[in-house]
């Protein structure tokens, strides 16, 4: 069978046999998992990074710090597939919680990227001159207010390219969620492929979709970087 025939078969299943519904559903899940995972990850990561840079004279920051160390150690030390399986087949059933697989995937992606983003964010916070913190504290702002209003905005500007990297990794990593039965892009194209016993074109199309998504994200990041640059130097 030549490529044209394969392509026609693919188009036929995609359009006439409701393949596109699967693809759209897969795309939706992929984006949902990656975007929500990133958002949760940024929140968790920022919190952990803040705990890590707090001066550790008192008991509470020390306890929090060791909890964070354990957390980061666990999520960076095991593959995401393993975490996904652990959550879906071990942790949640043990707790008696029944969640749809997409929700579990979002949670695991969030927790996992939180561990990575915490280190990215920490380097970002440490790249901001300590004088910024002192300046904020000297006018009577609290540590957390100075962090929120002064240090983290500057840190985010510094780490935006790396954060974009993390987002791209997340998008691509979503292809593992079929392990727990969530319908992502891989599931959609696999469906089309197995219906026609022809995998060449579907998988090619899948790769192209991933590339297009990543290109769009790259552009978005570039745009954001430019708009954040305005305080940098003479404009």
């Amino acid at each position, binding site marked *: 069978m030549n490529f044209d025939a394969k392509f026609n078969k693919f188009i036929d299943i995609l359009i006439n046999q409701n393949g596109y519904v699967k693809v759209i559903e897969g795309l939706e899940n992929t984006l949902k998992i990656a975007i929500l995972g990133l958002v949760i990850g940024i929140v968790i990561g920022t919190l952990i990074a803040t705990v890590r840079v707090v001066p550790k*004279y008192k008991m509470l920051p020390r306890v929090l710090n060791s909890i964070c160390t354990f957390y980061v150690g666990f999520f960076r030390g095991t593959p995401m597939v393993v975490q996904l399986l652990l959550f879906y087949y071990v942790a949640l059933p043990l707790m008696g919680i029944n969640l749809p697989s997409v929700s579990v995937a979002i949670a695991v992606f969030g927790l996992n990227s939180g561990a990575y983003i915490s280190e990215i964010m920490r380097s970002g916070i440490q790249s901001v*001159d300590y*004088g*910024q913190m*002192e*300046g*904020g*504290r*000297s*006018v*009577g*702002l*609290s540590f957390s*207010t100075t962090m929120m*209003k*002064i240090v983290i*905005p*500057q840190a985010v*500007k510094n780490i935006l390219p790396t954060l974009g990297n993390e987002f791209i990794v997340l998008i691509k990593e979503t292809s593992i969620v079929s392990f727990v039965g969530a319908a992502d892009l891989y599931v959609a194209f696999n469906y089309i492929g197995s219906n026609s016993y022809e995998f060449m074109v579907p998988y090619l199309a899948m790769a192209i979709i991933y590339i297009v998504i990543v290109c769009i994200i790259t552009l978005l990041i570039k745009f954001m970087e430019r708009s954040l640059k*305005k*305080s*940098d*130097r*003479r*404009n």
Partner: protein
Amino acid sequence: MIDVIDLKKSFGKNNVLNGIDITINKGEVVVVIGPSGSGKSTFLRCLNCMEDPTGGQIIFNGVDIADPKVDINIHRRKIGMVFQHFNLFNNKTVIQNIMLSPVLCAMADRRKAKRKNLFSKTKTPIKSVAEIKKEAEENAYKLLARIGLEDKANAYPSTLSGGQKQRVAIVRSLAMNPDVILFDEPTSALDPEMVGEVLDVMKELAQSGMTMVIVTHEMGFAKEVASRVIFIDEGVIKEENNPQDFFQNPKHPRLKEFLSKVLM
């Protein structure tokens, strides 16, 4: 206004301050000089607990702010600080730099007042958010006019010269209406050309009756503006006098040696 009693500070085994006692009165301009490594900057940074003292007391307006149980942020609002490297907020424009803390502090007070009003019969009047912002902005423009930088209100700090940055930093601390302002070598990071403009602003402040504690190497400025000069070496105050006697009749041998080495 500030009573420092037996102030001690050590970094690990390194004792930087070995018991400093001094009283700073309202309206005084106290200039602190000393060789590098003598602890003068550390002393100044202890005054608003930027460095936590390891011993002794700092009584500011009747409260010992060296006590870790005290909410230092409330007291820091009334203790301005100007740094060697300006420390303006790089992600904010000049006007935002000046307004930020007044607005945030007023908002925090507003929340507190609201909470209080819930439970008490006497209602304290509550300003609207817009009012708070407007007031802060008007005040900020007034302060900028005072240093002649109104046209830079919407510029980012990275576009200002060192002297301009330091003047903005001074009015940023003024915006909180402080009782005292601490200056940590405010002209040391400036080009020689720009030292004058910053010193002029400080002189004007001193004349308006602001209480100031200044660590500096500008001896001429100290002579002219100070109401008292103190010499710190090895973590203790070695000599303390009015500027005339301080510079003309230094008594402590270490001070004599120090003054003979610096250009006047």
